[in-house]
């Protein structure tokens, strides 16, 4: 009957997190044999699988760019990703928008000019959805690209933050996202701190913006540590197998 209370008097959110806590993140690179690079990542109940192919010859001649590699991002939601089963068209504008945001995020980071006249394909699949599509797509793509050995300037780590009343909160889940609170998605290069994506849904008071932005940046750095550890562990496993 009533709207949900996003922060209870004890300072806990609906799922029991505090305002500045991330959901639990699990990730694993190299999960698919077929792909050149792949990764699986879970952030709470949002789960995403990424596969990277390339650099390889473009399928269509028209996609060839003579001085650098073409980056192609395709995103799809599994029909079973939400509680109501529903098939989404490939041409769904919201999905295309997210895919293009991911593409734009990676264009300045991937050293694409090393591979002229070729194409790098990033396929993203949301297996289960609970908010934060853009951030999980970027994080999954980063891992898969690294796994594929595509040369990049840095990791790209993304995180969302919102604002309930006056309290900035990190990493919104689906319930929180749909409560018309503002949502800011930030993607940064963690080593230099440069921002490659900044996306805002709904309105946020300009005085609050800085604190929300700082919180999201902190979130990105925390995510970076998790991703980096997972990749290093994976490499250790791989090298130990070699020996």
């Amino acid at each position, binding site marked *: 009957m009533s709207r949900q209370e996003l922060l209870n008097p*004890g300072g806990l959110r609906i799922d*029991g997190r505090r305002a500045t806590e991330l959901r639990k993140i699990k990730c694993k690179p190299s999960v698919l044999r077929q792909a050149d690079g792949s990764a699986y990542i879970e952030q709470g*109940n949002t789960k995403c699988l990424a596969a990277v192919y390339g650099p390889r010859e473009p399928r269509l001649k028209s996609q060839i760019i003579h001085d650098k590699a073409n980056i192609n991002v395709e995103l799809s939601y599994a029909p079973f990703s939400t509680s109501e089963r529903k098939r989404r068209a490939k041409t769904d504008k919201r999905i295309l928008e997210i895919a293009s945001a991911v593409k734009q995020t990676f264009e300045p980071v991937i050293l694409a000019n090393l591979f002229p006249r070729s194409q790098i394909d990033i396929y993203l699949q949301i297996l289960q959805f609970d908010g934060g599509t853009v951030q999980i797509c970027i994080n999954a793509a980063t891992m898969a690209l690294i796994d594929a050995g595509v040369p990049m300037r840095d990791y790209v780590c993304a995180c969302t933050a919102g604002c309930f009343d006056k309290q900035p909160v990190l990493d919104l889940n689906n319930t929180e996202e749909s409560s018309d609170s503002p949502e800011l998605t930030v993607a940064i290069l963690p080593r230099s701190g440069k921002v490659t994506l900044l996306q805002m849904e709904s309105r946020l008071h300009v005085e609050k913006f800085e604190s929300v932005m700082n919180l999201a940046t902190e979130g990105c750095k925390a995510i970076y540590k998790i991703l980096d550890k997972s990749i290093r562990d994976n490499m250790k496993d791989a090298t130990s197998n070699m020996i």
Partner: protein
Amino acid sequence: MLRSKGFIKRTKKGNAVKVVQEHYLREDIWCSVESCSQCSHTESILRVIPSNTKIVDSPHFIVADTNLFMNQIDIIEHKSIRNVIVLQTVYEEIRHLSLPIYNRLKAIISDTSRGFYVFSNEHHRETYTDRLKDESPNDRNDRAIRLAVKWYSTHLNRTAKVLLLSDDVANREKAKKDGLLAFSVRQYVEGMVDFPELIDMLGNTADNQETKNKEFTYEEHLSSAHISNGLKNGSLYQGSLSISTHNYLEGSIMANVDGTDTQIMILGRQYMNRAIQGDIVAIQLFPRTEWLKTPTEVIVDEEEENMSTNGEAKENNNIEVEEMLTSAPQPTGKVIGIIKRNWRPYCGFIRKQTVQGSSTSTLSENVLVITMDRRIPFIRIRTRQAQNLMGQRILVSIDAWPKDSKYPMGHFVRALGSAGDKDTETQVLLLEHDVPHQDFSLQVLSDLPIEREAWKVNEDQLRDRMDLRNLNICSIDPPDCTDIDDALHARQLPNGNYEVGVHIADVTHFVKPGSALDQEAATRGTTVYLVNKRIDMIPTLLGCNLCSLHEKVDRLAFSCLWEMSADADIIQVNFTKSVISSKASLTYDEAQRRIDDLRMKDDLTEGLRLLNKLAKKLHARRLERGALTLASPEVRFQLENDSQDPVDVVEMKDLKETNALVEEFMLLANISVAQKIISKFPASSLLRHHPPPTESKLENLAQSISQFGFTLKYNTSKDLADSLNKAAIPNEPYFNKLLRIMTTRCMMQAKYFCSGNFGKKDFLHYGLASEIYTHFTSPIRRYSDIIVHRLLEACINTNSVYSSELTDKTKMQKLCDGLNYRYVMAQLAARSSVELHTNIFFKGKTEKEEGFVTRILKNGFIVLIPRYGIEGIVCSSKSSLSATPASPVVYNPHTNSLDSSLCDISIKLFNKVMVQITIDEDLVGGMRQKLKIELLNPYIPGLSVNNEGKGSVRKSDDENRLSSNVKRMKINV
């Protein structure tokens, strides 16, 4: 931090959907008890204090279950209940069950002195529990509560005890089996010997109430599933029940029957089936043959009254008033279920006959409380203080209405004071009209400027604002006005045009959005003016000092500056924040005298003359467009200084030119501001509109004045204004005013709305004949103006930051609805206050006065007495219940008149009559007073009272005054 996941299933929108949510369990949720060594909380809410109840002697904390909060919230709110652990399980259940109680609980929690702590047991690793197989959600929650109590008990070890309060016997048993301390509220409260009043405040739940008359039952309510099915397939209707103010057994809802919006009548208590005024109910229609044919049948069933307990019929002195309106059958139905209760605490008094005990008895007994609002049924309460409370006004809450009880069960909340006392009665009318009237809380007061009275305009403000202190600005207000909202100035510009400025107190400088002060002002919505009292919207320090535009001090203002031609055409308009210093605070009289005194040639007076000249032109133009001049019968009481008792009734003063002057420029400012804000916020501006009147009402009026040879045209407001001007009888000066009063009553209410929700043509303000209108000029006493100030500031200052409240259409409309409600309530409260003082004024007097018939009813007529601005019913039959063999007058539906059966006199609309006014003090044992009006002249046998009564007869020299005592009212300007 350990995190684990739980799974919750939920259904939405009727179709079952599985929702999976994460559920983190944590180890960092602290107990919040002071001096706890294991937890690392920074702020401890729960304090170890000695026990104030006899049932436990050591310091303790209370854990209460959900039902306790739901049924006994009045007890929980009592200041003696402290150190309560509100479990998250309980907190969330309450939110789902009842929003009002949830909000009250939230208010207690935010008051830190009370020591209410919300313990997030659902996210605590040791107190979370999964639902077991075959366990109902309720049982699971009860178990979770017990688990939390257990955790606290072991956690605290010996420093303090934890009590589980629950009225559920089974739950208490289980708790005791687990080795916990569990009590019922009654046990707990009875142990608190220092607070005996708590026992009376115990909610009357069905299980502690012995049921009395078994032979009497209401029909069972349908289940909510049945109701929603019925509503879907169209067999049921839903609506908010509104009960007639004249007849408490006649209710109705507005619903869409067969495609048209009609009123569905519900007659008699049996068919109303325990629904109370304001409840959202589900209605089943009777077959068409049983529909109400003529209103004549709107008579209380004899049977209905026979069911009542002894002597009740006598008390229901409500006059059954029936109107003859339609002859088409009216849809009639019965309540078969209640969708949402809308109960609030009600004011009332104890019915003497129901008190049985001797005067020294302190045994608790059942008594009936008669509510002040006649539309609310009597309420049965159980109290030990019946003897003390007799003759007092008390506040009671309804707990339940079981089907085998004729009246709802309730409990005592608090006593308000003795009946008839002016302060008590004023408090009653504030409560009954839901006017927030407590003193401002400390939190609100802390939002005031820290300098308090010493606050001054500082350099920063001077730099950011336009400095208009050199202008000859003055304010014109009624005498004794302390909250001066507006000031004016006018001067000639070098180019021959005129500059006119309206300066409005800059309240938004002090009331920042989102502050406690702002929220309080928003809930109050408006300042309420009673006869002897004013309930402020913002604290007096602001309203009457820092914001108020007093003379000879620097004040912050929001200025609206026009450049006008000599013909009062607007050349351009400019809005700016400013600093002003009013040169003089004038009254209407003083300003008028300045204008009239030709010897005065100072700049200020010249400015006033200029304003006056322009105002006349603006006024003429407005009338040309078709603005209406309406009227209301208003009087003012002259109060005695000490006792504040009314000693005389003064007529409202004639409208002076200066009065019109101020009004004209305020209208202009409001219109200019409305045009400005709509240009920047087309979807979310707060505007005010006044819809055209419904034609059927005016048609009736037009019909009744046709007997005097006048026609009433009402196609446009211009037509209406013209025909009102024409309709005057030379030797009856009051006739025209009466007509204007009656026209006013046919009008719709002017209302606030959010521009995004209406089409452009609905912006029209009919009464002012303006295409767009808003409220800008009284931010001290109206919250709408504060919002408009913020909108305007966002328009003119591109750097200004504003929150989403100003752009959110839904929030804005919700705010408008709230404000509309508050304004209506404020008006009603003001009217009741006048009524109260009228009654005090007429106490012990018998006056004879001239009156006019304003409405004909089936068994009486309504008379308006201009001298006192009061209106009352003259009854043709004493009571519809006592079977008067033949009424002295008979209603004639063709001429809409009451014809005497014995002589050749008939009473028609607009007739002039002589009446006698007395106060009927003996109603319901002196607890209710009522103005009694009896007919003197024309003399109708059986109806009129004998002419030569005691008391003074006012001579007809009063008649000369009659015409003047009506204040011309700007309809809700």
